[in-house]
Protein backbone atom coordinates (compact mmCIF):
# COMPACT_ATOMS: atom_id res chain seq x y z
CA UNK A 1 0.00 0.00 0.00
CA UNK A 2 1.35 3.41 -0.95
CA UNK A 3 1.43 5.89 1.96
CA UNK A 4 -0.95 8.78 1.54
CA UNK A 5 1.69 11.39 2.22
CA UNK A 6 3.71 10.28 -0.82
CA UNK A 7 0.71 10.70 -3.07
CA UNK A 8 -0.21 14.07 -1.67
CA UNK A 9 3.39 15.20 -1.87
CA UNK A 10 3.54 14.11 -5.49
CA UNK A 11 0.33 15.93 -6.22
CA UNK A 12 1.69 19.04 -4.51
CA UNK A 13 4.86 18.90 -6.59
CA UNK A 14 2.97 18.51 -9.84
CA UNK A 15 0.63 21.31 -8.88
CA UNK A 16 3.53 23.58 -8.15
CA UNK A 17 5.11 22.76 -11.48
CA UNK A 18 1.83 23.74 -13.09
CA UNK A 19 1.80 27.02 -11.22
CA UNK A 20 5.35 27.75 -12.23
CA UNK A 21 4.48 26.97 -15.82
CA UNK A 22 1.60 29.43 -15.73
CA UNK A 23 3.80 32.08 -14.22
CA UNK A 24 6.87 31.54 -16.35
CA UNK A 25 5.72 30.80 -19.85
CA UNK A 26 4.30 33.34 -22.25
CA UNK A 27 2.81 30.92 -24.76
CA UNK A 28 -0.92 30.70 -24.14
CA UNK A 29 -1.00 27.05 -25.18
CA UNK A 30 1.73 26.06 -22.77
CA UNK A 31 0.00 28.00 -20.01
CA UNK A 32 -3.09 26.04 -20.83
CA UNK A 33 -1.15 22.81 -20.54
CA UNK A 34 0.18 23.89 -17.18
CA UNK A 35 -3.38 24.48 -16.04
CA UNK A 36 -4.18 20.93 -17.15
CA UNK A 37 -1.26 19.81 -15.02
CA UNK A 38 -2.73 21.54 -12.00
CA UNK A 39 -6.10 19.95 -12.60
CA UNK A 40 -4.49 16.56 -12.79
CA UNK A 41 -2.59 17.17 -9.59
CA UNK A 42 -5.91 17.88 -7.93
CA UNK A 43 -7.32 14.70 -9.45
CA UNK A 44 -4.41 12.74 -8.05
CA UNK A 45 -5.12 14.11 -4.60
CA UNK A 46 -8.77 13.16 -5.01
CA UNK A 47 -7.95 9.61 -5.96
CA UNK A 48 -5.40 9.33 -3.20
CA UNK A 49 -7.88 10.38 -0.54
CA UNK A 50 -10.54 8.20 -2.11
CA UNK A 51 -8.36 5.14 -1.82
CA UNK A 52 -7.36 6.18 1.67
CA UNK A 53 -10.98 6.52 2.75
CA UNK A 54 -12.01 3.48 0.77
CA UNK A 55 -14.85 5.42 -0.83
CA UNK A 56 -15.65 6.05 -4.48
CA UNK A 57 -16.80 9.65 -4.16
CA UNK A 58 -13.34 11.01 -4.80
CA UNK A 59 -13.11 9.08 -8.03
CA UNK A 60 -16.50 10.36 -9.10
CA UNK A 61 -15.24 13.88 -8.53
CA UNK A 62 -12.23 13.15 -10.68
CA UNK A 63 -14.63 12.04 -13.35
CA UNK A 64 -16.43 15.36 -13.17
CA UNK A 65 -13.18 17.28 -13.19
CA UNK A 66 -12.17 15.49 -16.37
CA UNK A 67 -15.45 16.44 -18.03
CA UNK A 68 -15.05 20.04 -17.04
CA UNK A 69 -11.46 20.01 -18.25
CA UNK A 70 -12.56 18.69 -21.62
CA UNK A 71 -15.14 21.41 -22.04
CA UNK A 72 -12.70 24.05 -20.84
CA UNK A 73 -9.98 22.95 -23.25
CA UNK A 74 -12.37 22.98 -26.17
CA UNK A 75 -13.50 26.52 -25.43
CA UNK A 76 -10.07 27.77 -24.51
CA UNK A 77 -8.43 26.45 -27.66
CA UNK A 78 -11.19 27.93 -29.77
CA UNK A 79 -10.56 31.26 -28.12
CA UNK A 80 -6.82 30.98 -28.68
CA UNK A 81 -7.31 30.18 -32.36
CA UNK A 82 -9.65 33.11 -32.75
CA UNK A 83 -7.18 35.35 -30.93
CA UNK A 84 -4.43 34.21 -33.24
CA UNK A 85 -6.56 35.04 -36.25
CA UNK A 86 -7.08 38.54 -34.91
CA UNK A 87 -3.74 39.37 -33.29
CA UNK A 88 -1.31 37.02 -35.02
CA UNK A 89 0.14 35.93 -31.69
CA UNK A 90 -0.36 33.46 -28.88
CA UNK A 91 1.99 35.23 -26.47
CA UNK A 92 -0.07 36.44 -23.53
CA UNK A 93 2.24 39.37 -22.77
CA UNK A 94 1.60 40.83 -26.20
CA UNK A 95 -2.13 40.91 -25.52
CA UNK A 96 -2.95 43.42 -22.79
CA UNK A 97 -5.74 45.59 -24.11
CA UNK A 98 -7.71 44.95 -20.95
CA UNK A 99 -5.63 47.18 -18.71
CA UNK A 100 -7.15 49.89 -16.53
Amino acid at each position, binding site marked *: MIPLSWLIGLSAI*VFTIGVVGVLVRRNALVIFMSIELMLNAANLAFVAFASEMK*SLDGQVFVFFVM*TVAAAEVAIGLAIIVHLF*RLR*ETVFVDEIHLLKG
Partner: protein
Amino acid sequence: MLPVLFVAFAALLVVTSLMVVLHKNPVTSALFLVLAFCSLAGIYLLLRAEFLGMVQIVVYAGAIMVLFLFVIMYLNLQHDVETGLQIAVRRGIGWFVGALMLLTGAALLKRGWALGPANEVMPGAEQGNVAAIGRVLYSRYLFPFEITSILLLVAMVGVIMIARGRTGHPSVRMGPAAERGAAGGSA
Protein backbone atom coordinates in the same frame (compact mmCIF):
# COMPACT_ATOMS: atom_id res chain seq x y z
CA MET B 1 6.34 -4.37 -5.84
CA LEU B 2 3.81 -1.53 -5.60
CA PRO B 3 6.12 1.12 -4.11
CA VAL B 4 8.72 0.44 -6.78
CA LEU B 5 6.23 0.92 -9.56
CA PHE B 6 4.85 3.97 -7.81
CA VAL B 7 8.24 5.58 -7.49
CA ALA B 8 8.93 4.85 -11.13
CA PHE B 9 5.68 6.37 -12.27
CA ALA B 10 6.04 9.32 -9.89
CA ALA B 11 9.53 10.07 -11.16
CA LEU B 12 8.31 9.86 -14.72
CA LEU B 13 5.40 12.14 -13.88
CA VAL B 14 7.55 14.77 -12.24
CA VAL B 15 10.19 14.75 -14.94
CA THR B 16 7.72 14.89 -17.79
CA SER B 17 5.70 17.69 -16.22
CA LEU B 18 8.90 19.63 -15.65
CA MET B 19 9.73 19.13 -19.30
CA VAL B 20 6.27 20.39 -20.22
CA VAL B 21 7.05 23.62 -18.46
CA LEU B 22 10.64 23.90 -19.55
CA HIS B 23 10.71 22.82 -23.15
CA LYS B 24 10.63 25.59 -25.69
CA ASN B 25 8.80 23.71 -28.40
CA PRO B 26 5.07 23.55 -27.74
CA VAL B 27 4.72 20.28 -29.64
CA THR B 28 7.30 18.64 -27.48
CA SER B 29 5.66 20.07 -24.36
CA ALA B 30 2.39 18.59 -25.49
CA LEU B 31 3.98 15.19 -26.02
CA PHE B 32 5.56 15.31 -22.60
CA LEU B 33 2.20 16.21 -21.19
CA VAL B 34 0.75 13.10 -22.84
CA LEU B 35 3.45 11.08 -21.21
CA ALA B 36 2.72 12.71 -17.88
CA PHE B 37 -0.93 11.82 -18.22
CA CYS B 38 -0.07 8.23 -19.06
CA SER B 39 2.09 7.91 -15.98
CA LEU B 40 -0.67 9.44 -13.93
CA ALA B 41 -2.96 6.79 -15.37
CA GLY B 42 -0.43 4.23 -14.21
CA ILE B 43 -0.58 5.67 -10.69
CA TYR B 44 -4.38 5.47 -10.83
CA LEU B 45 -4.06 1.82 -11.74
CA LEU B 46 -1.78 1.27 -8.78
CA LEU B 47 -4.44 2.88 -6.61
CA ARG B 48 -7.01 0.37 -7.90
CA ALA B 49 -8.85 3.04 -9.87
CA GLU B 50 -8.81 1.12 -13.15
CA PHE B 51 -11.74 2.98 -14.63
CA LEU B 52 -10.18 6.37 -13.98
CA GLY B 53 -6.87 5.20 -15.34
CA MET B 54 -8.41 4.19 -18.63
CA VAL B 55 -10.64 7.22 -18.83
CA GLN B 56 -7.59 9.36 -18.11
CA ILE B 57 -5.89 7.96 -21.18
CA VAL B 58 -8.99 8.09 -23.36
CA VAL B 59 -9.99 11.61 -22.41
CA TYR B 60 -6.71 13.38 -21.80
CA ALA B 61 -4.26 11.54 -24.00
CA GLY B 62 -6.75 10.50 -26.64
CA ALA B 63 -8.86 13.62 -26.99
CA ILE B 64 -7.61 16.70 -25.21
CA MET B 65 -3.98 16.47 -26.14
CA VAL B 66 -4.81 15.61 -29.73
CA LEU B 67 -6.80 18.80 -29.76
CA PHE B 68 -3.77 20.65 -28.44
CA LEU B 69 -1.56 19.17 -31.13
CA PHE B 70 -4.13 20.13 -33.72
CA VAL B 71 -4.13 23.72 -32.63
CA ILE B 72 -0.36 23.90 -32.41
CA MET B 73 0.01 22.47 -35.88
CA TYR B 74 -2.80 24.61 -37.22
CA LEU B 75 -1.16 27.76 -35.88
CA ASN B 76 2.17 26.32 -37.01
CA LEU B 77 4.04 27.38 -33.87
CA GLN B 78 7.76 26.91 -33.80
CA HIS B 79 10.11 27.30 -30.84
CA ASP B 80 9.04 30.06 -28.47
CA VAL B 81 11.51 32.93 -28.36
CA GLU B 82 11.85 33.75 -24.69
CA THR B 83 14.67 36.18 -24.24
CA GLY B 84 15.08 39.58 -22.72
CA LEU B 85 15.09 41.08 -19.25
CA GLN B 86 11.37 40.94 -18.76
CA ILE B 87 11.28 37.23 -19.35
CA ALA B 88 14.18 36.68 -16.97
CA VAL B 89 12.48 38.71 -14.26
CA ARG B 90 9.21 36.86 -14.63
CA ARG B 91 11.04 33.56 -14.67
CA GLY B 92 12.73 34.45 -11.40
CA ILE B 93 9.46 35.50 -9.82
CA GLY B 94 7.76 32.37 -11.09
CA TRP B 95 10.30 29.99 -9.64
CA PHE B 96 10.35 31.90 -6.38
CA VAL B 97 6.59 31.69 -6.02
CA GLY B 98 6.73 28.04 -6.95
CA ALA B 99 9.28 27.34 -4.22
CA LEU B 100 7.14 29.28 -1.76
CA MET B 101 4.11 27.23 -2.72
CA LEU B 102 6.03 24.00 -2.36
CA LEU B 103 7.09 25.07 1.12
CA THR B 104 3.53 25.78 2.11
CA GLY B 105 2.59 22.43 0.69
CA ALA B 106 5.23 20.82 2.88
CA ALA B 107 3.81 22.71 5.84
CA LEU B 108 0.44 21.26 4.98
CA LEU B 109 1.93 17.79 4.65
CA LYS B 110 3.34 17.93 8.16
CA ARG B 111 -0.10 18.42 9.63
CA GLY B 112 -1.39 15.01 8.67
CA TRP B 113 -5.09 14.28 8.13
CA ALA B 114 -7.72 13.02 10.52
CA LEU B 115 -9.70 10.85 8.16
CA GLY B 116 -10.61 7.25 8.70
CA PRO B 117 -11.95 4.80 6.14
CA ALA B 118 -15.51 5.50 5.16
CA ASN B 119 -16.13 1.83 4.34
CA GLU B 120 -14.36 -1.28 5.55
CA VAL B 121 -13.57 -2.37 2.01
CA MET B 122 -13.34 -0.36 -1.19
CA PRO B 123 -16.60 -0.87 -3.06
CA GLY B 124 -16.24 -3.00 -6.13
CA ALA B 125 -12.67 -3.88 -5.16
CA GLU B 126 -12.97 -7.37 -6.55
CA GLN B 127 -14.67 -7.32 -9.98
CA GLY B 128 -13.26 -3.96 -11.03
CA ASN B 129 -14.69 -0.66 -9.90
CA VAL B 130 -16.44 0.28 -13.12
CA ALA B 131 -19.77 -1.08 -11.98
CA ALA B 132 -19.35 0.46 -8.54
CA ILE B 133 -18.52 3.89 -9.93
CA GLY B 134 -21.44 3.62 -12.28
CA ARG B 135 -23.71 2.82 -9.38
CA VAL B 136 -22.53 5.87 -7.43
CA LEU B 137 -22.54 8.10 -10.48
CA TYR B 138 -26.11 7.28 -11.42
CA SER B 139 -27.55 7.31 -7.93
CA ARG B 140 -26.00 9.88 -5.63
CA TYR B 141 -24.35 12.04 -8.29
CA LEU B 142 -27.09 11.80 -10.89
CA PHE B 143 -27.90 15.50 -10.83
CA PRO B 144 -24.28 16.69 -11.19
CA PHE B 145 -23.95 14.15 -13.95
CA GLU B 146 -26.86 15.64 -15.85
CA ILE B 147 -25.53 19.13 -15.26
CA THR B 148 -22.21 18.03 -16.68
CA SER B 149 -23.91 16.87 -19.84
CA ILE B 150 -25.53 20.27 -20.17
CA LEU B 151 -22.10 21.83 -19.62
CA LEU B 152 -20.70 19.81 -22.48
CA LEU B 153 -23.56 20.84 -24.74
CA VAL B 154 -22.94 24.49 -23.89
CA ALA B 155 -19.24 24.04 -24.56
CA MET B 156 -20.01 22.57 -27.98
CA VAL B 157 -22.26 25.46 -28.94
CA GLY B 158 -19.77 27.95 -27.60
CA VAL B 159 -16.89 26.45 -29.55
CA ILE B 160 -18.87 26.54 -32.74
CA MET B 161 -19.89 30.13 -32.19
CA ILE B 162 -16.35 31.21 -31.41
CA ALA B 163 -14.79 29.24 -34.21
CA ARG B 164 -17.00 30.63 -36.95
CA GLY B 165 -16.25 34.20 -35.91
CA ARG B 166 -18.60 37.11 -36.27
CA THR B 167 -19.53 36.73 -39.92
CA GLY B 168 -21.36 33.63 -40.99
CA HIS B 169 -19.03 31.14 -42.63
CA PRO B 170 -15.66 30.12 -41.14
CA SER B 171 -13.90 30.33 -44.50
CA VAL B 172 -14.88 34.00 -44.66
CA ARG B 173 -12.83 34.98 -41.63
CA MET B 174 -9.68 33.04 -42.46
CA GLY B 175 -7.01 35.60 -41.65
CA PRO B 176 -3.55 35.38 -43.23
CA ALA B 177 -2.38 33.60 -40.11
CA ALA B 178 -4.94 30.90 -40.65
CA GLU B 179 -3.78 30.39 -44.20
CA ARG B 180 -0.23 30.04 -43.03
CA GLY B 181 -1.40 27.56 -40.46
CA ALA B 182 -3.26 25.57 -43.05
CA ALA B 183 -0.22 25.62 -45.31
CA GLY B 184 1.37 23.27 -42.79
CA GLY B 185 5.06 22.51 -42.60
CA SER B 186 5.99 24.62 -45.60
CA ALA B 187 7.17 27.37 -43.25
